[in-house]
């Protein structure tokens, strides 16, 4: 077949084109023809199809995502906002931090190892293209029923992919989440977060400026992997009877990515680069159209110069390929030689594929023939925008009316003890060591806190000790009960986790995982969740710096629970003053901060013991959340707190158990009067933490809480005398008139046994 050139397209206006197979709707195809004043060439069609996919164009979410900008708090810390590869915030001392979370859900279900691996690769390239050195990664994960055989395939593959790629890349994995719920059975969630640091002067943006500047493609060669990945995989619902989609999943090479990191940072620091862009979803189509539309407005590309792994690839395939570990840089002609020398040093292949011009067009030629001639903005930014219909689902009333009030609760001390042992071993609450021990948390030598601590903490400045803390959270059951409040609760938990380690919460990223936007029920959940999150960020003065939307997480008509994963980043002046989660010395006093109410809807107890989901999620007072964070940060800064741990999934019982297991030292606790022991232990009321205070600091600490009118109840004291060495004991008094005693080693055994038994 002869090449479908621009001239040929003009001469054959009625030629049939496979726009449907490429994921475009008829009206979208018609608007391409309107933009061009003719039918697109096959190469142009390929570019529009990937760039106008849901994954790249945010066509269903755009109208709602605007809220993050419209409601953005005035915050001087924002250096680069939403819209760039990743947002950048000022953390002081001339340092800037960029962080972002992205989804790689669909590829990870089809091919778990490579899907998860390339998820890390993609987010890391977003961070380096801002000019930052990546310093840590985190992985919020969601899986189906842990006893379903397919969960084993998916989980072990995903964990191996994260381990295999991330460890080889040399980035510490410092946290994340692993949650099981049958709603994710056919749609596991693999979100990947990366944090990068740089000096202010090193910030770089994705734009092609400077007439005559060279456009250089460097990194791995372009192959046939991942062709149509975003349009075919990420933007369509899985169909049980559909064809296998494995060829659309990309294959990663972490070694090449490591070279790409070092090579990119070297060319950036040497001042050799005017603009830079990573190649992820939509590959060369995305990089060239975005660079061109953000710069002088025009670019010419010689596509036949692209280095190939497979010489039989057609130009359309080259434009759509999502081969990993590639970057695109805009370089002044006089600096091209120096740029190439750095690439050679790192054994990275590079080639000039294009030139910046002011034609206002993105033109592509293939062996002398013109195959693309489009306005670049029309590809990169002016895609379709949908106002999808949305409406509160008819079933919401019934779901919210079906509260947990009638579920059987433990009513005796013996039942409380049984519940405690069962709860620490549920798949969601059990220790995640079996997974996290497969990740390198030490590399780079700056990891101050990692899983299972409340947030991961990284030292940024080795001299001053300035550092950052990051946590990601989302109880999707809360979001299923009330998406507005659920998103706010996810934010509040993440905010609290950061504050619990002593860091001041500063900025927010998010990964919004939902079902099909074509379903008005799902679209309503999405609209509510975004509104909730945007409102919370405004009230708490923590701007959203960027994020990602993942739609179509559903199999047939069944969508996942709405899962707005929220990542909060905080800053700490000196990581030496971090607050760990484990208590340390005998005599330290244990306090519960915050109010405990009978709030068990959507709780881990209702889920794990009764497989129940209904009612209204816990109430949230953001003003109080802010006060609690101030107390936690001041307690760290002024040396009042020996330990702190947030209360969330599994309530106070789980928080105390985790602190005891982490410490290894026993404690004597009591249920305060006026509380039902069961409610006190397993309610998931928001805005609470357990803190540990040295006796000498008690007066100062309680006065601080009183001055802020914040509830602080003394519930225990660290006491290693209750047990013997190697057999420490948690004692719990005032449990329906009785005293319970639990050995920490038995808690440990129950907590550590679950995951190896399921997946080991």
């Amino acid at each position: 077949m002869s090449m479908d050139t621009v001239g040929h397209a003009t001469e054959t206006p009625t030629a049939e084109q496979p726009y449907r197979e490429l994921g475009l709707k008829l009206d979208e195809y018609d608007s391409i023809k309107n933009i061009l004043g003719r039918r697109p060439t096959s190469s142009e069609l390929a570019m529009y199809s990937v760039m106008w996919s849901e994954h790249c164009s945010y066509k269903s979410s755009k109208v709602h995502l605007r809220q993050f900008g419209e409601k953005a708090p005035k915050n001087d810390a924002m250096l680069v906002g939403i819209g760039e590869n990743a947002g950048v915030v000022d953390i002081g001392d001339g340092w800037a931090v960029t962080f972002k979370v992205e989804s790689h859900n669909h590829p990870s279900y089809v091919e778990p190892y490579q899907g998860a691996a390339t998820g890390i690769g993609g987010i890391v390239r977003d961070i380096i293209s801002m000019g930052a050195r990546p310093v840590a990664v985190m992985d919020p994960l969601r899986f189906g029923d842990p006893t379903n055989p397919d969960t084993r395939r998916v989980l072990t593959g995903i964990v191996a992919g994260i381990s295999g790629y991330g460890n080889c890349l040399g980035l510490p994995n410092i946290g994340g989440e692993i949650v099981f719920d049958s709603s994710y059975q056919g749609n596991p969630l693999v979100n990947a977060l990366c944090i990068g640091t740089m000096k202010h002067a090193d910030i770089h943006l994705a734009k092609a400026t400077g007439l005559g500047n060279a456009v250089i493609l460097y990194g791995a060669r372009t192959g046939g992997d991942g062709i149509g990945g975003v349009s075919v995989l990420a933007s369509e619902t899985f169909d049980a009877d559909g064809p296998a989609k494995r060829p659309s999943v990309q294959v990663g090479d972490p070694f090449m990515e490591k070279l790409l990191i070092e090579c990119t940072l070297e060319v950036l620091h040497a001042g050799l680069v005017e603009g830079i862009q990573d190649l992820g979803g939509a590959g060369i189509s995305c990089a060239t159209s975005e660079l061109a539309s953000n710069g002088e407005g025009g670019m010419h590309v010689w596509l036949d110069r692209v280095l190939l792994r497979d010489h039989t690839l057609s130009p359309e395939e080259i434009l759509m390929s999502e081969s990993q570990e590639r970057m695109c840089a805009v370089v002044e002609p006089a600096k091209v030689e120096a740029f190439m020398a750095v690439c050679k040093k790192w054994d990275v292949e590079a080639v000039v594929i294009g030139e910046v011009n002011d034609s206002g067009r993105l033109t592509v030629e293939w062996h002398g023939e013109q195959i693309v001639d489009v306005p670049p903005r029309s590809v990169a930014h002016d895609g379709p925008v949908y106002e999808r219909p949305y409406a509160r689902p008819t079933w919401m009333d019934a779901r919210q009316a079906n509260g947990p009030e009638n579920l059987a609760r433990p009513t005796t001390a013996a039942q409380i003890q049984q519940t405690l042992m069962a709860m620490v071993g549920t798949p969601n609450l059990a220790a995640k060591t079996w997974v996290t021990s497969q990740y390198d948390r030490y590399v780079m030598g700056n990891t101050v806190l990692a899983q299972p601590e409340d947030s991961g903490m990284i030292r940024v400045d080795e001299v001053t000790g300035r550092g950052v803390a990051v946590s990601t959270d989302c109880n999707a059951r809360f979001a299923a009960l009330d998406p507005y409040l659920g998103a706010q609760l996810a934010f509040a938990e993440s905010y609290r986790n950061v504050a619990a380690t002593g860091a001041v919460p500063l900025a927010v990223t998010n990964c919004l995982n939902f079902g099909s936007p074509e379903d008005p029920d799902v679209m309503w959940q999405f609209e509510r969740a975004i509104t909730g999150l945007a409102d919370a960020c405004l009230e708490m003065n923590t701007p959203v710096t960027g994020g990602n939307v993942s739609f179509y997480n559903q199999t047939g008509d069944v969508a996942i629970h709405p899962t707005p994963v929220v990542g909060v980043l905080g800053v700490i002046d000196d990581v030496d003053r971090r607050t760990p989660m484990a208590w340390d010395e005998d005599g330290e006093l244990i306090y519960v901060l915050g109010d405990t109410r009978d709030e068990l809807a959507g709780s881990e107890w209702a889920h794990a013991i009764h497989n129940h989901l209904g009612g209204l999620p816990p109430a949230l007072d953001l003003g109080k959340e802010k006060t609690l964070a101030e107390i936690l940060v001041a307690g760290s800064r002024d040396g009042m707190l020996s330990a702190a741990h947030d209360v969330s999934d599994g309530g106070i019982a789980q928080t105390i158990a985790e602190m005891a297991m982490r410490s290894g030292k026993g404690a004597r606790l009591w249920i305060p009067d006026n509380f039902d022991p069961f409610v006190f232990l397993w309610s998931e009321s928001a805005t609470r933490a357990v803190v540990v205070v040295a006796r000498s600091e008690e007066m100062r600490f309680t006065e601080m809480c009183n001055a802020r009118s914040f509830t602080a109840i003394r519930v225990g004291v660290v006491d290693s005398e209750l047990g013997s060495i190697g057999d420490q004991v948690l004692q719990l008094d005032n449990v329906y008139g009785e005293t319970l005693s639990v050995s920490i080693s038995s808690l440990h055994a129950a907590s550590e046994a679950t995951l190896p038994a399921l997946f080991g």
Partner: protein
Amino acid sequence: MSPRIGVVTFPGSLDDRDAARAVTIAGGEAVSLWHADANLHAVDAIVLPGGFSYGDYLRCGAIARFAPVMEKIVDAANGGLPVLGICNGFQILCESHLLPGALTRNDHLHFICRDQKLRIENNSSAWTNSFEVGQEIVVPLKNGEGGYVADERILDELEGEGRVIARYLELNPNGSRRDIAGITNAAGNVVGIMPHPEHAVEELTGPTTDGLGFFASVLTSLVTNGRVTV
């Protein structure tokens, strides 16, 4: 003048900055060496750091062994220059035949990262002289291919000559024969160890500061052997 300790960066080296930091904290001067530069720049000792040189493709350390800098290192090591190989560095030393045996896939087939207890078995090598024999230390371990293997004759020889420098305690994390975590050559200047002492040099970021002993040892031995004058 502080002793100059070279840290080699291969493509895919990951813990090179960590090794340099450990050298500095111990009181040495860290000197960066580049795999393609066949020049040791007059360093007094060398660390081959952890990581995945050349992606660990083909076999861990098998490609790095042919790097231009390695030819110089092999000659210098045979001439008595102290060389420490950590994790991937240990694998490279075995591939270079500076140490016997090989490192194979962990017996449980997973990468493992944990705080590992070790017992020091030999304190006469250039890299372990600051420890006591029998001393128990904790340093991070992180590897996918850390199972030390050699034939029985070599294992017996290593044991007989006291060339096992450290052994895993409480849990053998990777199926290493005879719980071997690290060995030395007969002269005691070349040491390979699978766990990562460079990650245990600061209270803030490591489980202990036990790892500093390895770096302090080489500084002491350089001075004692007159290779460096202070």
